[in-house]
């Protein structure tokens, strides 16, 4: 368990960088060349829950129901994907993986006819081990994201035969599938490389989880096996195919879910006695809204900073009611245009409620989201031994801005709270659920403020100020890298990718193309070489 308290130094450097030429660079211009960089450490990365589910569906089919409980995802440098390269699996986690494997396998073997139709080769009897081997090879390659070694196939066929002998072929499949799904080759992404470079299958897996939030498909595995990925051209072609595929949308959604911690919206904890719009379904709907906007901007090659400035969003009737806009559809999600008070994710319920308390807003929490999540600027932890109480609302201090004055006047508090609170106060016209309001305790709310020298009048302007912030390109590049590679990017690589992002008009595809095809993305340093 780790708590995100600060981010990489890259972000600090970004503060001093020149203002990005936001509107001047057409995407077609020549992009900067990749600099030499230190290799990243080789890592073993356990699948996150989302990656486990995508992998299980890939092996067993989209219709299988997912297990309800796995080892909880951790968090490191802001991402479950990074914690998955650090944390060890607990004893309970091992047991849950076993439960999950049988839960999944049982669905597959429940219907003998369907099972036979699904298997690449369905054995006629227990002696038909050649056919079993053929099935194990195909299913194993999908599950382990690489071809199985001959001994690995032999071991699984021997297990199958032992169980078919003791019981029956369907039973044997149940346990053979469970063995595939409990193997560390399924549960971990092995990114240890060879001679300083990821092996073709390791690279294919890293790129596929980056761009599709899913394991490599048969075509990508085939390219890894036939040598296509040994050349820069082959890798570029593979990346191009993944970026053009509809599954790229899932990749964007996977990243944004981790980046913004949208999984937390499953536990929507707002007090329904205070907030009439609070409802258990509101959290998942709010997540869907943000994911749809992010995916739409990414796949349509828009400036991805429109995440912060877009007047368009995608809402269901519940969200439409909260936003006071006409519902675009009777069911599901459709596009709407916000009123002038609301722009981008800083106006989304996902962000506004996700960084509020159960019964009230948090200027500090919302400001921290902007600073650390959107701009990668470190905010120190509060000192452990001070009284952090705020005064109760009363007639002399009706608004949160009034009550926070103490924090901002006390030097010990102000040193940190001046970093976060003025930003969060810009969002005070949205309550803890995200509903627009102009008054608090009968007094008008003043949403104006300043962010690192740029002033804003309200939340809508704040989004634009964050979008133009000099730290943004380096930060967003850093976040994508941590998600994709499981650790911090090399300094030079981050600088280069930030330049690339800016030069291509802040579009997602050019950035991810450069990242996925970079040498830095496939270079790893094994421990032997490090020490």
């Amino acid at each position, binding site marked *: 368990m780790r708590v995100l308290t600060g981010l990489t130094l890259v972000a600090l450097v970004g503060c001093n960088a020149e203002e990005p030429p936001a509107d001047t660079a057409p995407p077609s211009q020549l992009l900067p060349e990749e600099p030499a960089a230190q290799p990243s450490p080789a890592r073993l990365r356990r699948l996150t829950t989302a990656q486990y589910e995508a992998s299980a569906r890939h092996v067993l089919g989209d219709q299988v129901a997912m297990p309800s409980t796995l080892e909880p995802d951790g968090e490191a440098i802001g991402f479950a994907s990074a914690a998955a390269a*650090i944390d*060890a*699996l607990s004893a309970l986690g091992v047991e849950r993986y076993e439960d999950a494997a049988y839960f999944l396998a049982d669905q597959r073997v429940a219907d003998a006819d369907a099972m036979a139709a699904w298997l690449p080769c369905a054995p006629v009897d227990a002696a038909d081990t050649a056919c079993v081997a053929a099935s194990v090879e195909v299913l194993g390659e999908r599950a382990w994201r690489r071809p199985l070694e001959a001994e690995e196939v032999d071991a699984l066929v021997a297990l199958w035969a032992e169980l078919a002998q003791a*019981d029956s072929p369907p039973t044997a499949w149940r346990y053979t599938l469970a063995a595939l799904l409990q193997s560390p080759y399924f549960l*971990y992404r092995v990114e240890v490389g060879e001679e300083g470079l990821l092996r073709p299958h390791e690279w294919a897996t890293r790129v596929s989880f980056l761009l599709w939030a899913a394991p490599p498909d048969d075509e990508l595995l085939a390219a890894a096996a036939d040598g296509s990925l040994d050349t820069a051209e082959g890798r570029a072609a593979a990346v191009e195919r993944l970026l053009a595929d509809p599954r790229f949308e899932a990749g964007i959604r996977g990243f944004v879910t981790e980046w913004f911690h949208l999984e937390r919206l499953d536990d929507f904890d707002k007090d329904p006695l205070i907030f009439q719009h609070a409802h258990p379904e509101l959290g998942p709907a709010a997540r869907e809204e943000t994911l749809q906007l992010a995916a739409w901007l990414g796949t349509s090659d828009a400036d991805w900073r429109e995440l912060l400035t877009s007047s368009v969003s995608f809402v269901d009737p519940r969200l439409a009611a909260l936003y006071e806009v006409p519902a675009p559809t009777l069911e599901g999600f459709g596009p709407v245009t916000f009123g002038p008070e609301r722009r981008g994710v800083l106006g989304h319920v996902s962000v506004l409620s996700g960084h509020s308390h159960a*019964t009230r807003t948090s200027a500090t929490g919302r400001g921290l989201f902007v600073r650390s999540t959107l701009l990668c600027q470190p905010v120190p932890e509060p000192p452990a*031994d001070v009284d952090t109480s705020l005064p109760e609302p009363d007639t002399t201090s009706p608004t949160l801005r009034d009550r926070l004055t103490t924090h901002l006047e006390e030097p010990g508090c102000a040193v940190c709270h001046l970093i976060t609170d003025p930003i969060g106060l810009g969002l005070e016209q949205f309550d803890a659920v995200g509903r627009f309001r102009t008054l608090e305790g009968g007094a008008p709310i003043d949403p104006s403020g300043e962010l690192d020298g740029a002033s804003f009048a309200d939340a809508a302007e704040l989004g634009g100020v964050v979008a133009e912030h000099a730290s943004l390109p380096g930060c967003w590049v850093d976040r994508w890298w941590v998600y994709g590679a499981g650790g911090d990017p090399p300094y030079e690589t981050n600088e280069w990718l930030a330049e690339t992002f800016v030069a291509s008009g802040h579009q997602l595809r050019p950035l991810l193309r450069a990242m996925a095809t970079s040498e830095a993305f496939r270079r790893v340093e094994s421990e032997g070489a490090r020490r």
Partner: protein
Amino acid sequence: MTRPTPGSISRRGVLRGLLGGSAVGLTLPWLEAHASTCASGFPRRFGVFFWGNGNLPDRWTPLTTGAGWEPSEQLAPLLGLRSKVTVCTGLEVKVPNVSPHWSGAVGLLTGQDLDGADEGWSVRAPTVDQVLAAEIGNDTLYRSLQIGIADAECFSYSGANQPNYGETDPFALYQRLFGDTFRDPGGSGTVDPSLGFRRSVLDAVLGDLGRLSSRLGTEDRIRLEAHTDGVRGLEQRLARLQEAPPDLAACVRPEAPPESIPDIDGRIQLSRRSRAMSDLLAMALACDQTRVFSFSHHRALSNVLFPAASDGHHNLTHNEGGAQPEVHEATVAVMEELAYLLGALDAVDEGDGTLLDHALVMAVSEVSEGRTHRLDEIPLLLAGGACGKLVTGHHLRSQGNENVNHAMLSVLRAFDLSLPSWGADDTTVDTGWAPLEL
């Protein structure tokens, strides 16, 4: 990442040290059983009862010291168990208080400072429950059990970056402990060929783990070793299920909890969940399925909404004004659940006493006053006395803010561990807390 720790008996610490040198290809030995047994023959059990965000020291500390302590407002729910509960007050977690909540939690339960506060933190050493589990947990189906009521974080660590998460679903815990594989004491083992099949699968998994491990660097190899350890534990559990279960008079299959205990108006039913878990845990201990547990009511920093509270618990500790009546009520509510758990253990008759008498349950929070994250006056209750090893029924007060690690060392030594010291660097102690020891 982890520096060597004097006095640490962590198995992983030992392994880490060896791997850092030249000895590679080492296999982890399954530890020799080290039973810590009461005179009556019953095993000594250890448990941590954790709750987040502390107490209000002025309303916590009993009004009298010594035997028959007069309960404070916050300890009133424990009145009926007073003769079995020792209240330790005035002790202090001595690590630098650099990270609110986490410094206290790590310092209290590992004896040492946390590792790397600014870029996220980890423990440097196992928590006290896992130190004991490695020693006294090897004869049972489960080396230890983790249970979470409001959330899955239990503050149990097997080592750096090795968190043990808790089961939060009472019905899932019931199925695991008392489902199809459960056999009444005195009967025969489970006759089910699927147990053997599952073991064959785990053998294949262990083969994969071994092959993969040989390609990895030190840190990843240690992670995979933890995974391997978990698979071996599962395999051993399946083997034990095929043997006759321990013949224990007090062991009966408990009633199944409801399949679902839904939230009401967005609030978790803390008490119902906690009590369902307590009943299951008491019987898991009575059936000797485990001897070590961590029971977390809610985690450090938790913003859980108590039934009548106007805000999340952590927010209340910082923002409630005056005498903080809601914070007080929350602490009392937690003590009511502790009383229920201790009562459930005390209701199990075991020979010369009760299960609680044969246990040591340590109730702690990561801070004392939540509002200021104080680490002096750290709340520490010790129930059961580990069958005559530690003082019961007393209020013991430290006069000079003594290091809480002294009390932790007494706790660990109550389980017959020959532990030279506890803590690291400036916090290291090599003597127990004398008032606690018999």
